[in-house]
């Protein structure tokens, strides 16, 4: 690729962890020395601990790409954005940037509380590198987007935090730039504003601006970006198309990298999830009454078997399953009280102590051919939660249908995979409409 916009070469940033604010400075050392003389004893020099927030980060981003940085808190995503926006300086390596950079690192950028919204717009725009003419030209748009026209001449300190936020985002979003760096801008603000932001970012992206985006909101990442880099302890561990990267990220975070955990058995009851009322013994994904080894098949029923021990006589336990997809979206929740055909009689009545086995059947053709995660919850009828096992098992659904034998294929627009978190065949009726 020669049309890169950002090119990072072995970029690294090291921080020194201070015991106190001036820990390593010569002045502080001198002060320590003086203190030591007065106390008559030598204070041991504080251990200087170094931390590489970002290290060996090498990548290229080409024009018009929309790249998400994902990873756990403290993995170096925000530090990288700070380096690219030149807010802080790298310790080693270098990055080359082509064109004008605009960044929105956490919202609330540098407003002066005593100045009016109007004055702050001009100040903020000038700091972001917008010229006077450009600001004048965009002024109405900025105000309209932020929706603060009534309060334009009020001091910003009288704004609600939401209004300040809208204004900050609005100014930054209207700066003409080649590269836009965004850090967690969607994490704050109300729903309407989040949608507004997301649309605006999409609009900026469509205009060809290169975007680097840090967010924990994986669904908006999936929607806005076409590529994602996963950060772990300051390194880029994966750099992939966005959906692939997100599902890998989720797998990594849940420790089932590259595969699934279709069954889990707890040997020792003390370490099993649960409490004095209920203990989990096992959860397994079954198909055709057999434990699943590789993937479950799309066109057969899937059963999830939960075996748990009831430790208190006459408790009424209610078993719930929450199914979520490979992008972390909840797909559905189901329990053994509100069931499909007839009531689960055991769940409705008081239960003796002992082991119980609950079986939940997910009908064939409901799920799509992606990875699903199962979270188990057990409540009593008083809505007290006794057990929570997050993402306790997971399974891949595989579509082994031989479509060549079918009359009609899926449309080519479905790409490689059929999109969607579920794929239910629904009832349809099409007829020729007369008399219209």
């Amino acid at each position, binding site marked *: 690729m020669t049309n890169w916009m950002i090119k990072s070469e072995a970029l690294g940033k090291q921080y020194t962890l201070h015991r106190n604010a001036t820990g390593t400075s010569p002045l502080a050392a001198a002060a320590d020395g003086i203190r030591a003389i007065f106390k008559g004893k030598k204070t041991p020099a504080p251990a200087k601990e170094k931390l590489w927030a970002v290290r060996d980060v090498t990548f290229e981003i080409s024009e018009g790409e929309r790249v998400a940085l994902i990873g756990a808190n403290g993995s170096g995503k925000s530090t990288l954005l700070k380096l690219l926006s030149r807010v802080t*300086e790298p310790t080693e390596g270098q990055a080359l940037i082509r064109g004008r950079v605009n960044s929105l690192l956490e919202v609330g950028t540098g407003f002066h509380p005593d100045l009016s919204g109007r004055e702050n717009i001009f100040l903020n725009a000038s700091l972001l590198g917008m010229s006077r003419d450009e600001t004048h030209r965009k002024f109405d748009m900025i105000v309209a987007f932020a929706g603060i026209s009534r309060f334009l001449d009020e001091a910003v300190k009288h704004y609600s935090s939401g209004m300040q936020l809208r204004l900050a985002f609005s100014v930054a979003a209207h700066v003409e730039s*080649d590269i836009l760096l965004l850090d967690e801008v969607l994490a704050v603000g109300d729903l309407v504003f989040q949608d507004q932001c997301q649309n605006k970012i999409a609009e900026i992206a469509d205009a060809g601006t290169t975007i680097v985006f840090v967010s924990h909101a994986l669904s908006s990442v999936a929607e806005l970006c076409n590529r994602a880099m996963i950060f772990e302890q300051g390194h880029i561990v994966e750099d992939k198309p966005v959906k692939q990267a997100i599902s890998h990220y989720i797998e990594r975070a849940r420790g089932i990298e590259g595969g699934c955990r279709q069954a889990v058995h707890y040997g020792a009851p003390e370490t099993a999830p649960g409490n004095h009322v209920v203990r989990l013994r096992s959860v397994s994904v079954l198909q055709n009454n057999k434990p699943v080894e590789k993937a479950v098949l799309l066109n057969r029923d899937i059963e999830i078997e939960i075996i748990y021990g009831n430790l208190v006589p006459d408790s009424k336990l209610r078993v719930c399953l929450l199914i979520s997809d490979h992008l972390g979206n909840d797909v559905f929740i189901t329990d053994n009280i509100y069931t499909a055909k007839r009531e689960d009689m055991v769940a409705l009545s008081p239960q003796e102590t002992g082991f119980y086995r609950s079986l939940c059947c997910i009908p064939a053709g409901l799920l799509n051919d992606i990875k699903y995660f199962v979270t188990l919850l057990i409540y009593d009828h008083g809505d007290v939660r006794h057990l929570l096992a997050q993402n306790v098992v997971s399974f891949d659904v595989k579509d082994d249908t031989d479509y060549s034998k079918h009359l009609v294929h899926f449309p080519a627009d479905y790409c490689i995979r059929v999109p969607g978190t579920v794929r239910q065949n629904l009832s349809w009726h099409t007829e020729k409409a007369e008399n219209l």
Partner: protein
Amino acid sequence: MNEAHSPRPKKLTIIKPTTGRGILATSTEIWPYRSALYRMLLRDLRARYRHTAFGFTWALVSPMIWLLVYSFFFGYLVRFPSDGWPYPLFAITGIVVWTFLSRATLEGAQCLINNTHIISKIYFPRIILPLNQSVMAFTDFVISLALLVPVLLYYDIIPSARVLYLPLILTLAFFMALGAATWFSALNARYRDIGLALPLAVQVWLFCSPVFYSMSIVPESYRDYYSLNPVVGVLQSFRWALGNDTFAPTLPMMLSSITFSLALFISAMFYFHRAQRRLVDTL
């Protein structure tokens, strides 16, 4: 709104660890950000005088109060010598210059700390902040010069053509103030001790400078050493330009002031350039 993508040459920015050089780059970077400097100046001036009943006249209030206090205690009660001028005139010339230098230094020292919220979020040449603070103190200084006019008129003193030297003297004072503001802003960001020690140091310095007393009370044998205090040159040349010949600036006095200002300013640029790399990490 996407005229941003009309073909125009794209500036290449290289982000890498600061080396000793590049100080020139730091200084030349200010120009593209001139409107940011202007806006920031406007922001601080407005923010300072907003919600105040007297607005900009506050720039005059502080020197006026000191003028009254000094004139009463040192002029009327103690009867300090005042180089042949009426004491109030002597005092006000000292006060406006001293107020400028001390304010630029003290407020300059806080300017990085007070703008942490901007520094940690947007990139812009950080030098703009101490520069802004110095220009702001200078603006107040120029406003306070208006105080001199009624006092001069009252005592029937018409300055000679020497008054034309004033711009040069003000420039000298400005670079001294800018140098101090830049140095102490960067130092204070790293060692907060500076912010605590500085007001004390500034007060001590006031007593070492001919602000409210005349140089004539300094024993003659010490006067040459005394003149090495760079503030002496600024104060005395300022008074000389307004027509006071008693302790006209001497060559060593002025050399000390000019050398000090230049050295302070240049070393400040170097130090600031080095310090700004770890600014965000220490603030």
